[in-house]
């Protein structure tokens, strides 16, 4: 079924992909190669002194309990953000997909938060939950008796980050779920209804399985988001604290490299992250795209 076009001249296809390859080379392969190279050295920031240390930067990383703690919190965070934002987005998509009044108004409103820059999202949530001047922190403390202090309580800090990061991502997931829902054939649902299947059963037996390509795609995208794109939120809201309890991997790479100027250690961390991204991509292409039928 595939439509393939055969080029007459051998050089032309290479010429056509060349611009793209140049961009990929300059902005991906070149820096990646530099990161790998630098991860084997200790060097002072000005580049005056360079000491070859072999795998020492990596060994130091893997022997550091802080790194493993950072690893664990990153995984927990990515999973928490993915699950909560996908579950809420799916629920909202199903609700707005019904024939309700003001349906398109709700849809528009639900997509809006995606337009907010991640950094700004962090600031907004921080304002509301600031233990000293935040509105919600005040309500929690004086109306509900919950002592809110994410500056010192790690669980609360983690919760706040998850809320802020999920809130933005819900919009993104919502759009995809809504599109997915609209492509579910109405005839199937009507047939099930005639056979006497309850709305809940219809959802789990028909709609949800048909949504699986969307769900799997979103799963990968959300994990990537949770791992790599939540940096601005962490930077704004907790700066990795209290202690080091919310220092996710991407935040640690940045701190160690840009602020603390430990180029070797930070490069080693980037290489580890790079391997993780490659892993996630392989999973997506190898398993998910093959197993999930569209």
């Amino acid at each position, binding site marked *: 079924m595939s439509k393939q076009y055969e080029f007459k001249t051998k050089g032309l296809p290479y010429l056509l992909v060349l611009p793209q390859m140049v961009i990929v080379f300059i902005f991906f392969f070149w820096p990646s190669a530099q990161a790998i190279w630098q991860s084997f050295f200790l060097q002072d*920031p*000005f580049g005056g002194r360079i*000491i070859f240390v072999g795998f020492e930067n990596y060994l130091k990383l893997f022997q550091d309990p802080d790194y493993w703690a950072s690893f664990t919190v990153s995984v927990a965070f990515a999973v928490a953000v993915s699950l909560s934002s996908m579950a809420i987005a799916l629920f909202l998509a199903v609700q707005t997909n019904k024939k309700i009044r003001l349906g398109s108004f709700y849809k528009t409103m639900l997509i809006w938060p995606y337009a907010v820059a991640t950094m700004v999202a962090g600031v907004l949530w921080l304002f509301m939950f*600031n233990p*000293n001047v935040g509105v919600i922190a005040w309500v929690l403390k004086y109306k509900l008796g919950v002592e809110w202090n994410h500056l010192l309580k790690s669980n609360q800090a983690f919760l706040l980050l998850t809320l802020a990061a999920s809130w933005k991502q819900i919009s993104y997931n919502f759009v995809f779920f809504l599109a997915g829902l609209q492509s579910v054939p109405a005839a199937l649902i009507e047939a099930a209804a005639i056979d006497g299947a309850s709305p809940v059963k219809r959802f789990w037996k028909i709609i949800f399985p048909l949504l699986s390509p969307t769900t799997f795609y979103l799963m990968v995208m959300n994990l990537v988001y949770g791992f790599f794109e939540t940096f601005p939120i962490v930077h704004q809201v907790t700066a*990795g*604290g209290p202690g080091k309890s919310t220092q996710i991997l991407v935040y640690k790479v940045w701190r160690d490299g*840009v602020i*603390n100027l430990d180029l070797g250690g930070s490069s080693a961390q980037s290489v580890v992250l790079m391997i993780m991204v490659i892993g996630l991509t392989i999973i997506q292409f190898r398993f998910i795209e093959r197993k999930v039928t569209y």
Partner: protein
Amino acid sequence: MKKLLLLVLALAVVSGAWAQTTVEFWHAMTGKNGDMVQALADKFNASQKDYKVQPVYKGSYSDTMNAGIAAFRAGQAPAIIQVYEVGTATMMAAKGAVKPVYQLMAENNEKFDPKVYIPTITGYYSTSDGKMLSLPFNSSTAVMYYNKDAFKKAGLDPEKAPATWPEFFDYAKKLKASGMEGGFSTNWISWIQLENFAAWHNLPFGTRKNGFDGLDTQLIFNSPLVLRHLQTIYDLSKDGTFIYGGRENKANPLFSSGKVAMHFESIGGYANFKNTCKFDFGVARLPYYPDMLGAPQNSIIGGASLWVLNGKTKAEYKAVADFFAFISLPENQAFWHQNTGYLPITTAAYELTKAQGFYKDNPGPEVAIKQLLNKAPTGNSMGIRFGNFNIIREIEDQTWEDILAGKISVKDGLDKMVKDGNKTLREFERLNK
């Protein structure tokens, strides 16, 4: 043809003689302080015709430093770069990358007398035998702010701030008992409650004169007095007499919103409090423990200094040297001091500001200057010079949060700060030996 060539040559020589030498000055000052940097450069550019200093804003302190490093590695470095105090050891260790200021001034026959500068300020950026490496630019020190209205309400004398720590803690309890949400808070736990605290009590923060004498320095601030101090603050956090407001200067809203009555912050925050506080507040010296001999000593500075990078032409260096001499003049220092709230770097500028009557309306900055000049600095109070200083402060911030959250005892936490800090000092030593 020959004539034409000659004409071109002559033109080139003439225009060459008239060409201004422009040097770039990368800085991290925003808002009004950024305008004042521009104003200083404009004044300098208007004062002569040969040189032009061009300030370029490069983002936060760490952004500016990173931009400078990247530019240096690419051979495009600016002549002058503003580097925050924690970057001092990194800049010093970058041999071949920087040109020490004392050398620059000598090479350009600039009238340069290090004695006109306030020793506690220039000492921070000099070798231990007094050679100035970078020019102090924006300097501040830590002081105590207190809410005079709250003092009155609690029956305390608003014109008399607590002078010692025991008095201070007593006041804090009384203020909380008078109906405030808490007694006190502090910014910059590392800079104020550890580094300045040690200097103010003439205690060593690290060995080898706090790192001035060599890279083989060790942190030793886990002394009985520091333990006692942090333990007291921790104990007072239990009932909310002390409220933690976050790292760096994030605790400011606690004071400006009237939740706590006493607060520690840089004198650089004076103008900000003048704008945000809806009550009358005072500035006082840091408290001390009266049972410590020699306390109070003098406080130390924070802020940033100007470094000159290597690889520039003679004319460019002459421009930088002239500019440095220009901004050190009393009237320019007084201008900078009065408009930004940062401290003047020469005693003459301080005297000039006093003569102009500036401190009558702004008593806060004078408290800070007097605190710096309190005594001649000792090896414990000249300043702090550690490699990887950013990491050390980060360790202190993180551990302090773990202490307050009850994850680690005060004593173990303090020992951990020293132990982990020493590890990063050894890494820096290994790389820069």
